[in-house]
């Protein structure tokens, strides 16, 4: 999240879209309700289905799954047409005034540079015009037709109320009501925020939905202020931490880019990854990229990483340029029999991955599978699943018992970036040990095998620093935590010319902030954003329990540690005008007192941007320091555009002739069937979780009091559709998609209502995805038998939220 959970209380309007906060983030919803109690905040819930969140919000607006960009695009159009945007903020803090390169264009759903064969864009026309000194040209009057502001206005002028209503199924009155109420926060003293979750990420256009909201927040001046920002209410306890440490194919810990094959030397890699900005007022903080990357290599290979061998750069695996290795790609390759071994740690892909039938077929082709978890689940028992003959499955399966979270010490990051330390309350039952301990044991054994027998390319394995055990040979969590924070590898003196300070650090001492990491190999840093979680004297800031809150905004600066450098709200310099005076004195997040910032930890020490000599723009991580209305970083275009889901009810996209997201990868094999606008599968379907269960249910289905309240799989069907099909409430039904079928109980409800889409009535149904065949016995199997293998163009996050099904009596 750009902000954090408690900050929700500071909002005046909270749009909950793509989330069901009351059911899945009840304590976050408590802060949302507190905003209503304390400052009369308006709570708006936009969701295909009426849920408990809708019951407690001011009003609920149903929309068809997969049309979020159309809905939000209409709001951008409304904001620009009615001049609701925050002029001072947009002019100074976004790239609205930049001039788009002359070769860039958008026509009939496609941006310039599209290669239909490869379904990829080449981005060389998505550039901004620069002056002689290499600094982007700017038209501060925002009148030049080629300036980003006017291009944005032209692009979204197509999202008229009629068009958006016809795509989303939302009445024009409801659209205007939401647009008017939310855009009212485009003023100095009002804050609007948005809460989203999987409702937005589970789409082929997921990243662009979130970007559309980011554009809205920039236009209304809601980014970087208390009670503003775009807040992801994420589902897993340490999804933030696991994303920060990047157990993800595309990144190394600290969101460093994974090297690709064409960058065969460290110099080439660093040159490609280190952005350059000639604008003196752009902090362009990623110019320090080499410090972070080299420090990471030193933390991985220790003293084996030397200047001569490029700090071990060659040992790292390289991805093929443009290739992707996400979960869906893994199961494609596994299904083709090219993956022999799998580690499945604390996860249940046999229920939670899309297209379950293909996933379970793929698992059968493994030679071995190592599972580490606290309960058994469908993945580890795939060999005795429904329709599987164990005698035909050759896979060796290991199920290693792991400690649960209260049975081990360590840190966990909530999605407000608070890294909190947990203590060990009790020993795990039986032989269970922490996953960290299992990882150390297995890698240690592999290292010993390679040391004894040699093997293919043993260097990275042998040179890996792996001494994270205590005297008794057990996993030492503090050693790892400090390695993540980073150390000085030799006596170092740090001088600060402005503050005229000179501090000395001894070899082996902890690095107090990532500003002090070096690119010459004299420092190690397992994850640069976590540098500073320990003080130079070794105090573990993650254990802090300070209750003071001087700003009164609920920042709690001395409670645990928030990366980066304990900053609680990101881009908080944007909460002040260019002279550093807070836009909203009533909610003062930050203020420039002439020589320093007071309040939250500022986004960098530099003075406000009005100081032409030393001042910096607020968005310090961006190359040009300003919020990106024009965002060339995205795969499918610098401006968001509505495309229909891979499998939708319409044969033609009402806005352009591009039916689906042109940059989405299509997986072709016999089990990846798709049936769009097909009368065999006439109803839009979405999936979600329920309050009593959590994610795949692999933890909660084993708890009988929770199971008693939600015992088995059900499908929620609108009462109009149920009448049409003669389905009675509580009756067993079959839900079928082009890929598979599930049997479940019909829940006839008024909370799903038919939509009128392009003049046609379209029904929508929905199922939870928390059930699996292993337990309870007849509680229903994975809903993902229905879902397609397709993912977001940027992140490959699967499209669980919109596909087509049929429903019939069992």
């Amino acid at each position, binding site marked *: 999240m750009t902000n954090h959970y408690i900050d929700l209380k500071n909002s005046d309007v909270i749009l909950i879209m793509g989330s069901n906060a*009351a*059911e899945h983030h*009840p*304590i976050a*919803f*408590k802060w949302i*309700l507190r905003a209503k109690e304390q400052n009369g905040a308006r709570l708006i819930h936009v969701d295909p289905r*009426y849920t*408990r969140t*809708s*019951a*407690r919000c001011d009003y609920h607006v149903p929309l068809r799954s997969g049309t979020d960009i159309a809905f939000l695009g209409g709001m951008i159009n409304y904001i620009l047409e009615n001049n609701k945007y925050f002029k001072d903020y947009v002019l100074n803090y976004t790239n609205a005034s930049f001039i788009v390169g002359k070769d860039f264009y958008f026509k009939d759903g496609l941006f310039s540079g599209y290669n239909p064969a490869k379904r990829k864009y080449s981005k060389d026309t998505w550039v901004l015009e620069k002056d002689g000194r290499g600094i982007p040209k700017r038209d501060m009057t925002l009148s030049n037709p080629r300036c980003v502001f006017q291009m944005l206005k032209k692009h979204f002028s197509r999202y008229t109320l009629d068009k958006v209503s016809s795509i989303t199924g939302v009445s024009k009155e409801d659209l205007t009501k939401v647009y008017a109420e939310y855009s009212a926060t485009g003023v100095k003293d009002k804050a609007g925020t948005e809460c989203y979750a999987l409702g937005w990420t589970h789409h082929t256009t997921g990243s662009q939905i979130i970007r559309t909201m980011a554009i809205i927040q920039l236009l209304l001046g809601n980014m970087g202020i208390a009670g503003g920002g775009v807040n992801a209410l994420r589902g897993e306890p340490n999804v933030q931490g696991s994303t920060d440490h990047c157990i993800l194919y595309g990144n190394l810990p600290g969101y460093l880019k994974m090297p690709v094959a064409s960058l065969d030397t460290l110099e080439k890699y660093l040159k490609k990854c280190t952005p350059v900005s000639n604008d003196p007022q752009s902090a362009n903080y990623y110019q320090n990229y080499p410090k972070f990357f080299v420090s990471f290599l030193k933390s991985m290979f220790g003293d084996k990483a030397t200047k001569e061998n490029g700090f071990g750069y060659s040992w790292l695996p390289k991805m093929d340029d443009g290739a992707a290795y996400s979960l869906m790609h893994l199961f494609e390759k596994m299904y083709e029999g090219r993956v022999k071994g799998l580690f499945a740690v604390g996860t249940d892909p046999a229920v939670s991955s899309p297209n379950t039938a293909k996933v379970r077929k793929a698992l059968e082709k493994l030679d071995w599978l190592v599972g580490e978890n606290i309960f058994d689940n469908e993945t580890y028992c795939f060999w005795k699943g429904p329709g599987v003959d164990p005698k035909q499955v050759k896979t060796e399966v290991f199920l290693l018992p792991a400690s649960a979270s209260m049975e081990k010490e360590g840190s966990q990051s909530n999605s407000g970036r608070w890294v909190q330390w947990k203590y060990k309350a009790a020993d795990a039952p039986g032989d269970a040990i922490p996953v960290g301990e299992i990882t150390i044991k297995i890698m240690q054994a592999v290292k010993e095998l390679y040391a004894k027998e040699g093997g293919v390319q043993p260097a990275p394995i042998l040179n890996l620093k792996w001494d994270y055990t205590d005297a008794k040979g057990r996993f030492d969590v503090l050693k790892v935590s400090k390695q993540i924070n980073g150390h000085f590898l030799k006596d170092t003196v740090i001088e600060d010319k402005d503050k005229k300070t000179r501090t000395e650090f001894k070899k082996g001492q902890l690095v107090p902030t990532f500003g002090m990491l070096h690119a010459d190999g004299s420092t190690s840093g397992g994850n640069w954003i976590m540098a500073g979680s320990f003080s130079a004297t070794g105090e573990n800031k993650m254990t802090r329990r300070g209750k003071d809150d001087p700003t009164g905004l609920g920042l709690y600066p001395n409670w645990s540690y928030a990366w980066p450098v304990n900053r609680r709200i990101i881009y908080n310099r944007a909460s002040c005008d260019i002279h550093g005076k807070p836009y909203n004195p009533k909610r003062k997040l930050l203020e420039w007192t002439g020589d320093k910032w007071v309040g939250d930890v500022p986004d960098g020490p530099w003075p406000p941007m009005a100081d032409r000599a030393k001042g910096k723009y607020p968005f310090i991580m961006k190359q040009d320091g300003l919020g990106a209305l024009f965002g060339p970083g995205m795969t499918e275009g610098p401006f968001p555009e509505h495309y229909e889901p891979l499998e939708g009810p319409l044969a033609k996209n009402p806005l352009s002739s591009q039916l689906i997201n042109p940059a989405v990868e299509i997986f072709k094999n016999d089990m990846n069937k798709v049936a769009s606008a097909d009368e065999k599968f006439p109803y839009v379907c979405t999936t979600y979780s*329920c*309050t*009593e269960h959590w994610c795949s249910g692999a933890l909660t289905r084993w708890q*009988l*009091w*929770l*199971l*008693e*309240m*939600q*015992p*088995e*799989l*059900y499908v929620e069907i609108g009462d109009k559709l149920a009448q049409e099909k003669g389905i009675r*409430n*509580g*009756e067993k039904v079959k839900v079928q998609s082009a890929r598979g079928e599930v049997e479940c*109980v*019909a*829940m*006839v*409800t*008024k*909370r799903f209502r038919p939509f009128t889409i392009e003049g046609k009535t379209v029904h929508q149904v929905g199922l939870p995805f928390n059930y699996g065949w292993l337990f*309870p016995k007849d509680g229903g199997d994975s809903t993902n038998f229905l879902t397609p293998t397709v993912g977001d163009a940027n992140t490959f996050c699967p499209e669980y939220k919109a596909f087509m099904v049929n429903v019939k009596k069992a």
Partner: protein
Amino acid sequence: MKAEIVKLIDTTKCTACRGCQVACKQWNEMPAMRTRNRGSYQNPPDLQWNTWTLIRFQEYVDDKGAFKWLFRKDGCMHCTDAACVKVCPSGALHYSEYGTVGLKSSLCIGCKECASACPFDVPKYSHADDKIFKCDLCLSRIRTNQSPACVKSCPTGALTIGPKDKMLKKAYARAKELGGDANVYGDKFVGGTHVIYVLSEKPEVYEELPKNPAVPASIVLWKDILKPFSLLVAGGTIAGAFLHYITHGPKLPDENGHDAEGKGE
């Protein structure tokens, strides 16, 4: 007699997270049963011997056509004038010192009288134990100055408990603040209940919630009129016999033939 305790259920703050259902079973160590999905979030479907509190889900469209999803926490209302206590022959159901209705399971003989008498259909019979069970407002917890398990677990403040007058004042203030059809339910019948609701809709809208519950007429007739009258009569008989003894000495057996049948009560 201590200060009367009242539990307030503010249905307008409830998000049906059902933490109270789990907390009740955890504290009273009641086993979970294997349930089916009958087409509703509401599960188990009704109060039962091992389910003393239950969130009822109800989809409702008001007269102006607005859709609402109503959640109501069902369970014993702890009436001041309790039909179940009136009919309970063994004293298992009794008034506690806080005015609530306590239940001593050991004394229960499983006669199920209370189950048919209760205007709210709360007491539930268990075949295995041959006893009835119902919420006793965690009498054991209240006596050690703890709030009931459900109140402790409620994350949204929908459930609160305290002295009767304070909670009534709070309920009426909340109803006024909500406006519209919001009303307070429970203090107007059966002598006032020790569990009161703040409802967003009129009472008759809610399923399984009687419009004006009362102790069944038959019980009133039997328990409040006939029984005292019969005691009076019995008293009179004994007084008469005693008077006779004093004035006429002991009654000789053959004085009048119909002694053998004895008097019906």
